[in-house]
């Protein structure tokens, strides 16, 4: 599963993307954020306010309770500021 990071989430995690294989207990997007945050200090910092971070699965916005099963690309980013 590919994970992408954007804007300050990318800066804090310290990379733009990575490949991960979360364990079976990681079911939802929220679970995945907790699992990523527990890996290292940089990710912990990136996800410290998990409630402001948005997620997308395969190019569609999803809520934290969305299941990650079957996803090929998951992205994490701050609220959008385009336009």
């Amino acid at each position, binding site marked *: 599963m590919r994970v992408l990071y954007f804007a300050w989430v990318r800066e804090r995690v310290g990379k733009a993307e990575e490949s991960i294989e979360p364990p079976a207990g990681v079911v939802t997007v929220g679970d995945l954020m907790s699992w990523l945050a527990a890996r290292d200090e940089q990710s912990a910092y990136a996800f410290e306010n998990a409630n402001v971070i948005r997620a997308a699965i395969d190019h569609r*916005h999803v809520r934290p309770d969305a299941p990650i099963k079957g996803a090929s690309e998951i992205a994490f*980013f701050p*609220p959008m*500021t*385009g*336009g």
Partner: protein
Amino acid sequence: MTVTIRLQRETIDAASVAATMIRGDDGIGAVVTFTGICRSDENGQPIAALTLEHYPGMVEAEIARHVEEACQRWPILNVTIIHRYGRIMPGEVIVLVATASSHREAAFAAASFLMDYLKTRAPFWKQVESAEGTAWVDAKATDDAAAERWSASRPRQRAK
């Protein structure tokens, strides 16, 4: 009907878009064009430039979904959306949304709807450069509220 969605690093030629909007349909009576411009200040602080980061692939998909929704809500005849990414200088156009319809109400509503959604749903992130360094722009609650007003009039989505 022509839908044009373009993400580009290059400057936007707003003038040339206007001319293309009425092509191909004699029934077009109204064109509304919105251009969002890089101001020379952000929250009262002078800025040197903006840098827009985007999520390639998702941006196009997300914009296309909202254009589709706009076309279901209003009788739109042509739509053009051009959004820049990369470094943008004050005075330059960041985004252009143009809608064409037979009548003005639909053209105004669709352009306003698309802008509200671009602001809050399209995966772009602005970073400002000023004398104090670079900083990510915070999302505005007013933009969320603006996008939210379109939800009231559409069928509620099923709870998941």
